Each structure stands twice: as C-alpha cells, then as structure tokens.
C-alpha cells in the first residue's frame, strides 16, 4: 500500500482521518449517523455494557459495523481487574483487539488512575491487545505507558465532557515532542479551535464526543471538527513562524513616500 502523505499508523494500521469520534449522547440515532459521516472519522468509539434483559436494544454493531473501525472503551472501570475483563469481553463482542483503556481514579473529575492504568496496559499488551490508554497530560505517565507497550497515548485536554479545551497546551506539546508513539488528544474539546490547537501542538489525532453530540447542530459541528483537525495538522506541517515581542513590518521599508 502506498504511504499517503497525510496518514499515520497505529499498530501497523494506516489511518487517514485524524479525528476519532464517540457515539454517546446524540439527540437521536440519525443525527449520530449523520454526524459521524460529516466528521470523516474512521475510528468510532463504543462502550461495553450489560445487556438489558428486558427488551433487546438495537445493536451498535449492526448500526456501524463494517463502515468503521469500532474502538471499544472500558469507560466506568476503576480498577485494572475490571478494565481487563471489560477489554476481553469487548474483544469477544466486537472481534477486535483494539481497546480504549480507561481506568478512572476519581468519580468527580474522572481523572485516570495512573497505577491501575499502567497495570492494565501491561496485562492487556501481554494478552495481545492494541492498547490506547486515556491518560493524564503528563509526559512521565505517557512515557511509562508507551514503555509498557501502549500503541498510542491519549492524554486528556481537560476533564471529560467539560468542553474546557486544552488546559495545559505546554504539557501536550512536550508529550508530543517526546512520545515514541502517536499522541491522540482525548477529552475536553469544546469547539473547533480546541481541536486545531491539539493538532498544532503536534498530536497525531483528536478523540472527541460531547463537543459534537451536544452542539446545537451536531452535524455542522462534526463537519467543523473535521476541518479543524485538517487545518491544525496542515499548519503544524507547514511550520508556524516564531513568536516575537515587538512588531515587524511585513511591507518593504524601502521607497516609502516622503523619505
């Protein structure tokens, strides 16, 4: 397969869309499907939940199945043990070894539990999973996860669902500069410029859900996010100018009238 200039790889899989999108919280099924289409995403996240034994709800697999790479998550897990079992159930349910690994250490902020996350990463990597951990925006925990075999790291921009954007751009930039695996900014995106910034800071991709699902017009926000990620990546590749303290005229200074 020819290597496209604007593509990247996770665990040997080539991806051309740099936007990963979630499936939760849309006003209805059609808006969700339209939004995912408008986003241009190839990778779509789902959760793994106990089936309701009264009434058999529509399957996400039938709805999305063959058109997308389904990325199951371990959302809601608070120990490595729960997350590992959830990942194994997800692998059986979806026939994929990709897992968005979430191990939450605090119910209120939904911040990741660094120790449990690393333990679960090690165990799942040993079990043949492609592990994409949702993690803190800290270069050290990101490095440790990559060392443990994570296929990418997914530092948070700000708390899940907060829409606060990227709270610490400097940390994200450092993580990107030093990471041995792709960095995917996950959580906190509020609007298109946040996604652009993530890409400008050097992220390989952005994962978001609420910013689109809860927008007044989710379809339109999804399209905006697609453009935002593309713009940010292009700007990053093009190379921004250095920042300077004082003005520097852009027009020529020779031949000024009156001199």
């Amino acid at each position, binding site marked *: 397969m020819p290597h496209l200039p604007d593509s990247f790889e996770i665990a040997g899989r080539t991806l051309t869309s740099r936007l990963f999108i979630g499936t939760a919280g849309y006003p209805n099924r059609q808006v969700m499907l339209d939004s995912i289409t408008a986003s241009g995403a190839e990778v779509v996240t789902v959760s793994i939940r106990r089936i309701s034994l009264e009434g058999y709800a529509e399957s996400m697999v039938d709805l999305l199945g063959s058109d997308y790479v389904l990325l199951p998550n371990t959302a809601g897990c608070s120990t490595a043990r729960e997350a590992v079992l959830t990942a*194994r159930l997800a692998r059986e349910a979806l026939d994929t070894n990709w897992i968005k690994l979430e191990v939450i250490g605090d119910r209120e902020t939904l911040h990741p539990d660094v120790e449990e996350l690393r333990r679960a990463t090690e165990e799942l990597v040993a079990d043949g999973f492609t592990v994409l951990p949702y993690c803190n925006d800290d270069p050290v925990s990101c490095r440790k996860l990559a060392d443990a075999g994570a296929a990418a790291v997914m530092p948070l921009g700000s708390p899940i669902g907060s829409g606060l954007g990227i709270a610490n751009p400097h940390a994200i930039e450092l993580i990107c500069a030093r990471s041995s695996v792709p960095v995917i900014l996950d959580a906190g995106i509020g609007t298109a410029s946040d996604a652009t910034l993530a890409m400008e800071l050097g992220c390989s991709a952005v994962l978001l859900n609420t910013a689109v699902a809860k927008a007044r017009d989710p379809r339109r926000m999804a399209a905006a996010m697609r453009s935002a990620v593309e713009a940010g990546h292009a700007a990053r590749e093009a190379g921004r100018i250095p920042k300077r303290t004082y003005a520097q005229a852009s027009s020529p200074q020779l031949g000024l009238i009156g001199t």
Partner: protein
Amino acid sequence: MTRHIPPHIQVNGQREPLAAPTLDALLRGKGVVPGARGVAVALNGAVVPAGRWADTALAEGDDLEIVRPFSGG
C-alpha cells in the same frame, strides 16, 4: 433437618434461581439469540467464547456477565 435451598446464580449483578443447565440454554431463555453479533459473556471472570456456550454447564454460585456494545465516547 436441613432446609433445601435451590441453587442460585448471579446474572448481571442480579441473583436468580438456576433454571438452565447450560449457558446456551440460559441465554436462549432470556431472548438472547445464539450467535447474536456483539454479545459477549463472562463466567466467573473469564470470557466464554460463543462457540462454547452450548457445552458450558452452569452451577450454584456462578457469576455471569452478559454484555454488548453500547453508545460510548
């Protein structure tokens, strides 16, 4: 004289009488179509592949998790 206590199992966190001899029979009894795409089952913390539902016997105290993909972020 000991009172007879019928065997129970735990299904998705709910205790219920053990009314089916195998995992496959239990799932059918709950309306889960055999081989339904996306359904996965763990018995006492270990995944049981769909191909082994029929020959997986259930016993007193078993703990089952029956899951499927749902919307998520």
